[in-house]
């Protein structure tokens, strides 16, 4: 495998990691606010807080990793995306900033505040929507390039069915992933009222998630037929994703083996996400940039890969420790520690 492929695979993996952990986090903020508003706040609050508090900072790092890695392996992408994304990127930054700080203000400050909860609940749904613009742009057709000038075509973006389908998918899958994780966590905590509420959320959001995926598929055929064709060549991956989905929903429905059901949810998104990514290659920004035209120099690529391996050797045990203490420690989950 050449450096370019290793690079993009590493990055894609970080983005996948972000997709999962951030979805849990974003969705939790929304459920937290929604249930507080409907008078069921105390039911889910404890479960959500026990999981989220120690890990919220870690979530942010996945995004930064992806971004820094992208700039590192493919510096000329910084030029194209950087210029085009000034406005949507800045809005995403502002939302992330509000969310992160108000999460902390709410939890470590000395007072409960519905307004703070609203801020981090609402931003949790807007962030995936604004970040998904990057994926939309990568399909081409929204950026005008002439010489050294790069411009984002807002009219095109806001009237595109494909763009809206992606936004829709981003939001509903956040809620679905989050609810299915929290269902598992509430079950583990032995909190039956939280469990039954969250289970309802999970089942409710599973329908729109699959609907949105199909919508993205169909609209991509209109928007970028080349890419759609390559996706058809890998259709087995998407079929597999559908199977994982069916399995996960079945288990949640039957209230059985909820740990396995969450793993199936992860596999469902992994299959679709890697299928989408692999069929996107070799383009990173269709049709201007491929992984081969934008790649950094070989010395830096090797250095980055080495740093990545060294970093993983440090991170994996640390993450394991974090999970041991807060996710897989039954006494902690049940609130005894």
């Amino acid at each position: 495998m050449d450096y370019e492929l290793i690079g993009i695979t590493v990055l894609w993996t970080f983005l996948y990691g972000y997709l999962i952990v951030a979805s849990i986090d974003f969705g939790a903020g929304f459920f937290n606010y929604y249930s507080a508003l409907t008078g069921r706040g105390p039911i889910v609050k404890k479960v959500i807080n026990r999981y989220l508090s120690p890990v919220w900072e870690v979530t942010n790092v996945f995004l930064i990793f992806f971004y820094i890695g992208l700039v590192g392996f493919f510096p000329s992408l910084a030029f194209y995306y950087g210029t085009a994304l000034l406005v949507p990127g800045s809005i995403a930054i502002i939302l992330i900033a509000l969310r992160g700080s108000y999460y902390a203000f709410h939890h470590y400050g000395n007072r409960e505040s519905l307004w703070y909860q609203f801020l981090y609940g609402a931003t949790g749904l807007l962030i995936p929507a604004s970040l998904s613009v990057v994926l939309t742009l990568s399909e081409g057709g929204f950026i005008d390039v002439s010489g050294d000038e790069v411009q984002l075509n807002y009219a095109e973006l806001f009237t595109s069915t494909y763009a809206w389908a992606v936004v829709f998918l981003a939001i509903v899958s956040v809620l679905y992933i989050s609810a299915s994780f929290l269902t598992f966590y509430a079950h583990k905590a032995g909190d039956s009222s939280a469990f039954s509420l969250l289970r309802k959320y999970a089942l409710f959001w599973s329908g729109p998630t699959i609907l949105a995926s199909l919508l993205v598929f169909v609209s991509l055929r209109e928007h970028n037929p080349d890419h759609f064709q390559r996706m058809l060549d890998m259709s087995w991956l998407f079929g597999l994703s559908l199977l994982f989905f069916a399995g996960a929903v079945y288990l949640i429905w039957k209230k059985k083996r909820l740990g396995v059901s969450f793993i199936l949810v992860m596999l469902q998104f992994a299959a679709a996400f890697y299928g989408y990514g692999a069929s996107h290659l070799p383009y990173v920004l269709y049709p201007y940039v491929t992984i081969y035209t934008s790649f950094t120099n070989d010395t830096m690529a090797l250095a980055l890969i080495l740093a990545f391996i060294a970093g993983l050797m440090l991170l994996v045990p640390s993450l394991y420790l974090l999970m041991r203490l807060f996710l897989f420690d039954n006494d902690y989950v049940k609130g005894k520690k």
Partner: protein
Amino acid sequence: MFEYDPVLYSRILTGLTLAFHTIFSTLGVGVPLLIALAEWIGIRRNDDHYHLLARRWARGYIITVAVGVVTGTAIALQLSLLWPNFMQVAGQTISLPLFLETFAFFFEAIFLGIYLYTWDRFKKKIYHLLLLIPVALGATLSGFFITTVNAFMNAPLGFTMENGVLKGVNPLLAMFNPATPTKMAHVLSSAYLTSACVLAAIAAFMILRGREHVYYKKALRLSMTVAFVCAISTAVIGDLSGKYLAEYQPEKLAAAEWHFETAEEASLILGGILDENNEVKYALEIPYALSILAHGTPDAEVTGLEEFPEEEWPPLVVHYFFDLMVGIGMFLALVSFVFMVMKWRKKSNELNRVLLWLIVSTGPLAMLAIEAGWFFTEEGRQPWILRGYMTTAEGATTSGYVDIMLYLFIALYAVLAVSAAAVLRRTFKANPAERELEKLGMK
């Protein structure tokens, strides 16, 4: 206000984000060290006051960390949004330290999460203290890596440029450029100093407000001792930084000192103003001091600004930033020295009101010195974004919306600053140390 110019607005927005982020990142680097020291002393002396101190410091720290994290995310993304041309070129050489910085931060974030949620989970207190080592290490390492990026922009090394294309890249050489050692030592030492001053200022303020518990005195003594040690090391490293500048970036030092003509036995200029003919007025001159600062001997020759084409001069306003930084640094060293002497001499009272008020002033002043120092170093390398290779104007975005984004971010930082201050105030006011001491059954 100004005519729309994406370069100018990009500079203002970047400056604003960094100035705001610096407040929180400086505390982010420095405070874990003080928390660790408090816990360590608590274990060694078996004194629960220090444990409570660590706990309360950590409680405030997490609020500042949150703002530090989100503004850090902002500056990371803004690098590409506002300086896409620069990142396209420099991304080839600086992505390694950026990548490593993220690893260090990741490491810190994991263990900080564990530390904050395991106060009473381990039977042996020492295990809890050990968790702070990766936190402090991660904070220090991320400070180190990100500083190497800034050092690289000041002293680019480890590549050759052929027709705008980078060749022969050596990432390690780029990281360990001549600016790195002094810069990173100065950044770390001043971050410890500033954090210690801020915590000392809080303790001093509480004592002035009539809090008599020995807890506050212990907090004050610990943080002032750290402040004293770090004030000395910061000054020593600052002197080395001057020698680095004389050797590698003489135009920055010359601009800071309004030193126009190359001369031997050069004198250091304190304060003063500059008239339109670039004549210095009302300044205090210290003979030979600039030669000593630059080269270590009173008769050494110091390069003047006239050796450089005028369009490559840094803005001469950097002199004021430089003076402010050095002046405050000296003041901090003096206050902490007086405190140490009075504490050591049994018959004098180090808790007299004048000294306490001076200590209160060191908190905000130290932060001001950090800002002044960064403004000096960043403005001092203008007009370059990559000294000698790329001007700031060449690196900026061409987008038409930077002004609107600037206003949005001004609003964001204002909201964050006000909320963070309100939350911190409320947290400690609603739960004073006395009440917590009582609740934990301490005297």
